[in-house]
């Protein structure tokens, strides 16, 4: 939670400074819209992220996974309910933090009703997509026992192409094209734009299509990897 606040605050300050140096605009955002971007950013991040593949790595190394595998249901259900609960608790602190930031930085929000309505399914899809993706990534620990490098690399790519470090419109043209193809934009920037009311209807439809497409790919991949992983699983410890 503190990490969330600090990260958002750092980039809020950096980009408002840049925007002021440019005379009040960067990447199509005015200075007060940048502030709005990074405040809404906190909300979308808390909803779409949460479960870390390191938890899985830890379980595999410690051997805690053995008992979970013996249960008759897929471990993803237990993980999901645990995470939803912690997310709800986190919201209790995130919302006041957002209000505090809003009081200090005086952002500008434009609330567009149809866009906010579309936000709900977009958030759900973004959350599920990121979750499944992280799960697939975590499952590689069945082979390597350690995630380290792979996850850090993944995190670095996500940092830029999801819109976490800056609005994607700030990125050079080629990088924006790449961001459209990668899954990261659809897990973060797309719902964030809906919340800020910056999407056009056709962009929204394209966004949903990309979310569904990536989700289908990832679910298929997860089933494939899971089957192999469970067979490959060698218990560590007892």
């Amino acid at each position: 939670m503190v990490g969330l606040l600090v990260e958002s605050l750092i980039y809020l300050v950096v980009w408002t400074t840049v925007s002021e140096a440019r005379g009040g605009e960067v990447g199509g955002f005015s200075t007060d819209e940048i502030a709005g971007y990074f405040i809404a950013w906190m909300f979308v991040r808390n909803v779409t992220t949460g479960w870390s593949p390191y938890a899985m790595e830890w379980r595999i190394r410690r051997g805690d996974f053995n008992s979970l595998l013996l249960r008759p249901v897929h471990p993803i259900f237990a993980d999901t309910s645990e995470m939803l609960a912690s997310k709800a608790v986190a919201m209790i602190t995130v919302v006041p933090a957002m209000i505090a930031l809003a009081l200090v930085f005086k952002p500008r929000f434009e609330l567009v009703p149809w866009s906010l309505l579309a936000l709900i399914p977009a958030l759900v899809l973004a959350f599920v997509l990121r979750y499944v993706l992280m799960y697939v990534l975590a499952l590689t620990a069945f082979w390597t026992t350690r995630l380290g490098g792979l996850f850090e690399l993944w995190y670095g790519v996500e940092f830029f192409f999801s819109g976490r470090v800056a609005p994607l419109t700030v990125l050079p043209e080629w990088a924006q094209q790449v961001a459209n193809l990668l899954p990261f934009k659809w897990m973060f920037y797309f719902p964030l734009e809906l919340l800020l009311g910056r999407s056009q209807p056709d962009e929204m439809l394209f966004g949903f299509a990309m979310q569904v497409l990536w989700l289908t790919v990832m679910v298929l991949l997860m089933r494939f990897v899971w089957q192999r992983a469970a067979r490959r699983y060698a218990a560590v410890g007892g």
Partner: protein
Amino acid sequence: MHYLRLIRTYVRLSALNELQYRANLLVQMFNSVLGLGIGLAGLALVFSQTDSLAGWGPLELLVVVGVHTLLGGVIKSVIQPNMYQIAEGVQEGHLDYILTKPEDSQLLVSITRFELWRLVDVFVGLGVLIFAVTRLGEGIGLGEAAAFSVVLLCGGLIFYSFWLAIATTSFWVVRTWSMYEMFDRLYQAGRWPVGIYPSWLRLGLTFLVPVAFAVTVPAEALTARLTPLYLGLALGMAALTLVATRWFWHVGLRHYSGASA
């Protein structure tokens, strides 16, 4: 002299332990280079939009990144592992074994564990610094280099004192983990000169989490911005925090009753 020998022995033990896991060096190198790459890409992104950030040019911000990486390496290899050990030692009870040894307890808890491979960041940071400083135009003289070394050392000592103070609270609060994490996260704010932050935050980053003294002031020394006032402040702050932390550690010890017995 005696203390130096003690430190050397502990460092050697840690090093021998870490040398068993040489593959970790490769993992660490990969992570260090990746971390630097992410930092540089962030800078490139900012400077694709503007020429200067609150009066700092690209090369000057590179100096900030260099100092941040260098000091981050020191924190992760020397300071943090030991401070984690303290909290864990209180919880599990093995702190008692350290306390029964006939040496200064603060020294012993500060040198029990070093993570050798994390030092990679120190070299990466140094490399970035040398690259940036040699391209900065006028370069730096002996005086600036000396001032930089002094304020960097002060920054390191201030950081150590703050960490030890947090670790000391584990005598009362058993779960100090969240405080560690908060401190760690706030250190990330030091990647940018503290001058860009609004004044209330700048105050916090100077006195609550001394990122300003640890990163920005040394970077100022290399970019000809350091005023004698800040040099003095850094020295004073280092002396003050060292003394205060030592006092606090002893207060903590007196409250400690041991968990292993």
